[in-house]
């Protein structure tokens, strides 16, 4: 019973996640325009809830903004013009994906700068590391000792060798 309750609470929580907030009467008659409208809703931010798109947000302002998108589509505006219309009023903030412009230069280039700087630092450290000197060749005594050790090891690995263990 307890497990069932936990499972159902979990399922409800998943089901209650963001979903489409469109009302049936918001559908556009023309399927091509409807498809463009849905794409635009998904990339525009609801200015009240801030981390929902117009598609996800149930707020009144999001519904009004969707209505504006539909009006402009019906008026024959292009997607870029519709985006610009809302950016003029709400700023770049209304776009969920920030545009690349002087104000967002740091935002877009910071990962690249960090990558190049870190890569450069690592490359520089590796290049600067002194080459490892060639080891001195083994003396005859050392060579004999190594051979003896290897010989003993081979003896250990034979199936019935018993070994030192």
């Amino acid at each position, binding site marked *: 019973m307890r497990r069932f309750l936990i499972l159902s609470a979990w399922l409800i929580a998943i089901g209650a996640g963001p979903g489409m907030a469109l009302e049936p009467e918001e559908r556009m008659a023309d399927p091509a325009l409807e498809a463009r409208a849905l794409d635009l809703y998904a990339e525009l931010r609801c200015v009240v809830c801030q981390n929902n798109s117009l598609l996800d947000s149930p707020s009144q302002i999001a519904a*009004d903004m969707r209505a504006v998108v539909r009006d402009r589509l019906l008026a024959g505006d292009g997607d870029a013009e519709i985006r610009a219309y809302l950016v003029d009023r709400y*700023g770049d*903030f209304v776009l969920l994906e920030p545009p690349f412009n002087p104000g967002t230069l740091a935002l877009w280039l910071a990962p690249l700068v960090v990558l190049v700087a870190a890569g450069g630092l690592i490359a520089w450290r590796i290049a600067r590391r002194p080459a490892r000197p060639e080891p001195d060749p083994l003396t005859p005594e050392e060579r004999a000792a190594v051979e003896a050790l290897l010989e003993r090891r081979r003896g250990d690995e034979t199936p019935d060798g018993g070994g030192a263990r």
Partner: protein
Amino acid sequence: MRWFLYALPGLAFAALIVWVAIPLVRGDDPSDLPSALIDQAAPATDLPGLPGRGPGFTTADLGGEVMLVNVFASWCVPCLAEHPVLTRLAAEEGLTIHAINYRDAPDDALAWLGRHGDPFARIGSDPEGRAGIDWGITGVPETFVIDAAGRVRFRFAGPVMPEIAAERILPLVEALR
């Protein structure tokens, strides 16, 4: 010199913490967004008036002197809180305040103004909320300061409480006059 290289990541992280902590400690509201309209001409607006109250509100009503534009609705509780402040600004400071009656039934708006007083010069009725979007509002109430050339100079989202009026709106109005 070597110790500095080893300390560098820690120092960079500490700098990041300080940079992130400053707005938190200062109590900045991340939902308080700057208006995109600042220093732009006021958005083109042509709204009908409330029935029986006279003409509506158009962009042509702006300019000539410093004015306020207030977005309000009868269903908006914070609007009630700021209403005495706006009334005082109009009566005592001689400020012209135009209003956009946002997503409201005209009759409800008239009844609300009848109960609480009407400090507004022109009121435009915006039952569909389109003018609200043209003004880039994120909620009600919002108040804009418009200069004599008809440009938006300041936007305040939320109720204009006495300290907001005294510290942020009146000094700007004085400077622009």
